[in-house]
């Protein structure tokens, strides 16, 4: 069993890249691996609490809550990226951490595999 670190920059709605990241994390955790998810840039939108579920938009909050409960998954948002978008500490979804970018590099250090999903 290994550790996968996923970094993602993509915005919450539209690209489905964040959906990919969360679904891949879910599949990996179900197979017994550990996963760290780092969201930076527009992907910090994922950490915003109170997202309303619409049929036109992917809604990842539920899967994240289940993943947090396994104990084999962490998710961390880039603190500066979040603040720039007006997401403050008390805007953050329960279970989501906030750190600076060095947290991500430390996660890469101890990871068996790293997947960075750049772009929008």
């Amino acid at each position, binding site marked *: 069993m290994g550790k996968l670190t996923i970094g993602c*920059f993509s915005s919450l709605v539209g690209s489905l890249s964040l959906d990919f990241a969360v679904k891949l994390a879910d599949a990996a955790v179900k197979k017994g691996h550990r996963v760290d998810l780092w969201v930076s840039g527009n992907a910090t939108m994922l950490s915003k609490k109170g997202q309303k579920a619409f049929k036109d938009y992917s809604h990842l909050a539920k899967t994240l809550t289940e993943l947090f409960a396994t104990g084999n998954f962490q998710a961390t948002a880039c603190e500066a990226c979040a603040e720039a978008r007006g997401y403050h500490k008390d805007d953050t979804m329960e279970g989501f951490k906030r750190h600076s*970018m*060095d947290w*991500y*590099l*430390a996660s890469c*250090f101890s990871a068996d595999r790293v997947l*960075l999903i750049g772009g929008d």
Partner: protein
Amino acid sequence: MAVRKLGFIVRSLPYKTEASRLALTHAIASQTVEIYLEDGDSVEPAVCFIEDGVMNCLKSQQAMKHYGVTSLEQHIMNALLLDLKIMICREDVERLGLKEDQLVMDAEAIGGETRAQLVPYSEIQKVMEEADHLQFF
């Protein structure tokens, strides 16, 4: 005591997405990662610009003047000041009609000593092979 080599490969244009900016800020974060690691452990980034990504390396970017945003040029200089390895693909620079003197090759203006390297793609391929993890931006 371990070192993990991370290859940051930038192929996207500046300003349209945040990708190249985030590549540089994440690479620079390697300078403070030790607080999370054991004594002697470290992360060694190399930032390589290929394809259209070489446009990030142009001098005289006036993004701060016009949009109030730090330029990619400034980020590259910051990375050089911190002695990060910066490589720029020579074939792509030539293909896009750019000359070396149009590129940010050093950070002398802010007291840096490390220079960027204009190299053939084969050198960047080597960086990719030597890296423990690769990330494309």
